[in-house]
């Protein structure tokens, strides 16, 4: 009983770290670069599927799937987002919305590789080479490391030139270009970093949950959830996604324990609306502002 109890809380902790990492990867694009993508679940799903296919179909260690997933998603991210850069604001978001929908159709029909709608179950063979562990503590360590990796990269970008370039491009593209910033390459770099980190999240998800089907990884809800955490925590801050996930993921766990799908998502939607309308700078941004106003008074 006590281990079950423990596992329940450990699972929430693991998911908190994983969501914080995924949201952090999105925050790089959307928060810094102003590229509000609604298609992150395409990268997440490809990362997860590459891992699972390499492992279950060819029997090779999923680590190779991870490498393949990263290569494919960064390549795909470059190819599909480069033409989309011509589009601004909501048009960019509309275009990105299409990719997870298209990927879900592909995954549903590519039966030989993805087993279509019935999904892939990953056999439980614990070991470091398969990245499957008996204890959830190991997963927690790995998820925490992934979250810190994303945090570290965000902080590094935030403090470095790339971050300044991104913010300049986000705030005024024409001015940024006239200052000599290579707009397209700056955007490409951040999209590729974001896609690669999201694919790592997909790899982790596959080897942790051990089951994949098209809607569970390509659903638009995943893209929305990823964005929601950053928005609630604070868009364009390194710490925002982590704070957002620390607040929302355990709340989601509790809600799903007490309510079914409808009321739970209803509360989720209200949280999203409230965050956007009442605290558009997120928890981190609002706290900063509050502290600043106290100091100046």
């Amino acid at each position, binding site marked *: 009983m006590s281990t079950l109890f423990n596992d329940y809380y450990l699972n929430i902790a693991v998911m908190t770290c994983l969501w914080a990492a995924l949201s952090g990867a999105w925050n790089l694009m959307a928060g810094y670069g102003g590229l509000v993508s609604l298609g992150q679940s395409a990268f997440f799903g490809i990362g997860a599927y590459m891992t699972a296919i390499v492992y279950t179909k060819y029997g090779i260690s999923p680590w190779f799937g991870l490498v393949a997933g990263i290569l494919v998603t960064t390549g795909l991210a470059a190819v599909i987002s480069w033409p989309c850069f011509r589009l601004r604001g909501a048009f960019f978001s509309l275009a990105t919305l299409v990719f997870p*929908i298209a990927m879900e159709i592909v995954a549903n029909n590519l039966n030989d590789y993805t087993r279509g709608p019935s999904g892939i179950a990953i056999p439980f063979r614990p070991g470091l080479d398969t990245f499957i562990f008996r204890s959830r503590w190991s997963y927690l360590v790995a998820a925490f490391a992934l979250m810190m990796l994303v945090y570290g990269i965000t902080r590094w970008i935030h403090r470095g030139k790339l971050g300044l370039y991104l913010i300049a491009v986000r705030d005024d593209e024409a001015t940024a270009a006239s200052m000599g910033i290579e707009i397209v390459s700056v955007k490409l770099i951040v999209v590729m970093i974001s896609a690669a980190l999201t694919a790592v999240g997909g790899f982790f998800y596959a080897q942790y949950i051990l089951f994949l089907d098209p809607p569970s990884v390509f659903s*638009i809800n995943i893209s929305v959830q990823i*964005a929601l955490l950053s928005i609630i925590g604070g868009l364009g801050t390194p710490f925002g996604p982590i704070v957002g996930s620390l607040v929302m993921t355990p709340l989601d766990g509790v809600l799903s324990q007490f309510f079914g799908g409808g009321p739970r998502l209803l509360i989720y*939607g209200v949280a*999203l609306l409230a965050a956007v309308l009442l605290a558009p700078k997120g928890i981190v941004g609002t706290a900063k502002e509050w502290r600043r106003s106290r100091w100046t008074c």
Partner: protein
Amino acid sequence: MLDLLPQLLVSGLLIGGIYGLLSIGLTLIFGVLRIVNFAQGEFIMLAMFGAFWLHALFAIDPFVSIFIVTPLVFGLGLLAERIVIKPILHAPHAMQIFATFGLSVVMQNIALTFWGPDYRSVQTSYSSQSFIVGNVAISATSLYGFIVAVLMAGMLIAFLQFSRDGKALRAMVQNRYAASLMGVNTDRLNRLAFGAGVASAAVAGCILTPIYYTFPTVGVDLIITAFVVVVLGGLGSVAGAMAGGLIIGITQTLTGFYISVELKDVIALVLFILILLIRPQGLFGRAGMEEVGTK
């Protein structure tokens, strides 16, 4: 195979008219408020449930329900504009997108909580009826739906073209700032545009009830089609949305029959991306709209 072509063209045209009406509201709201309303599909869904319940409880025909449901949805639109849209009119894109997205999640799950996930359908006395012209069979519900859709679109275009408010709305589509300098009450017209936008979605919802299934996430399926149609026709152009609807309706019917049913949805998505890349302003949109679009 080819002798079925007239039949397919007619079916595609009929469904395309309804697609057009679905998209008109979206395009009007975008043109005037510069906001992509991700919750548009949920207003359609609510209207469908409205028509469904009016039929189930009081045996009111869905085409009659239009006159009851549309004013209600119009009122709901005014309320939503007040609470959600007005505060974010000048917010960054991310906030605008996720505010309307949040609204859509809330509305979807209100429906899910109260009415459950079941697929419901409305059977009318003329549901299985069809007219035969030559060797083309025309389903009665689709034909009536198409007629109402075209009428509604015509009324909206006439309103925008000839009435004082309509002219003011068109001025706002061209340049919001200049319109407000000319004495246009932009606050009131924002409300009017949003209300009218969701009301035309409500008409589309009522028409769809006897043709399609009613369930809480029906809006998600519909809004993707509406996005494709609107981008094809040019965001902000009402006539463009109608033309885009007809083109998508026919394309989907033809690919669904001649190539494969799975490809039917993919072809719309492919078209969507191609248009965004090749001609982002759409067939009838003004060039540069996609760039100034959200300013």
